[in-house]
């Protein structure tokens, strides 16, 4: 499978949010720890709902968590 056409700062944001674990974030968003890990690594593109939920946990707008890669049309 091709990697997701966008980057994300979830790892950094977790660190800044009192070193939140992937499991904690997963619990807050309603997905498994493995799914958070897959999203962080760009192996899985989350649904719009999950993307918004992740952004909401960090209190950031969506575009500060997920960024489209400029070199991809």
């Amino acid at each position: 499978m091709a990697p997701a056409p966008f980057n994300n700062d979830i790892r950094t944001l977790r660190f800044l949010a009192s070193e939140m674990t992937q499991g904690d974030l997963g619990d807050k968003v309603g997905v498994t720890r493995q799914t958070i890990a897959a999203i962080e690594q760009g192996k899985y593109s989350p649904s719009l709902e999950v993307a918004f939920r992740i952004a909401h946990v960090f209190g950031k707008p969506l575009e500060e968590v997920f960024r489209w890669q400029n070199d991809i049309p």
Partner: protein
Amino acid sequence: MSFREKIHWASFFALLVAFGWYFLTYPWKIIGTAAGVGAVAGMLVPVTIIIISVMTITAAFFAIRTPKEANLKEDERERTIHIRGTHLAYYPLVLGVWANMIAMFYRLSVGEHLNLLIATVVIAELVRVGSQLYYYRRGY
């Protein structure tokens, strides 16, 4: 490794062991006789018991060890993996059904038809569970 992935591994190995035993020990020399049909029925009983036992014990073991994970609902990524695996398993299933229909024109015995159907289901299940495990390992 998530709870569901562990259950998938158990399912994969249970299928391999149970049906591996079935196909290796089935009395192929009497497949065309009534005893051959009886052997299919008789051997499916322990196969079913093996699979149900392995699945029950594994699910109980991991549910006790990690109850939080076991109680989690299937999330969207797991649902996608589930759907993709089922989709891929559809192809061997259709091929097997067609093979069985074509075999009818060659007047195969009931035992041969039964074994062809069992092989079809087993291959489809191995493709389903195997592909799901592959997607779990890859992250998607």
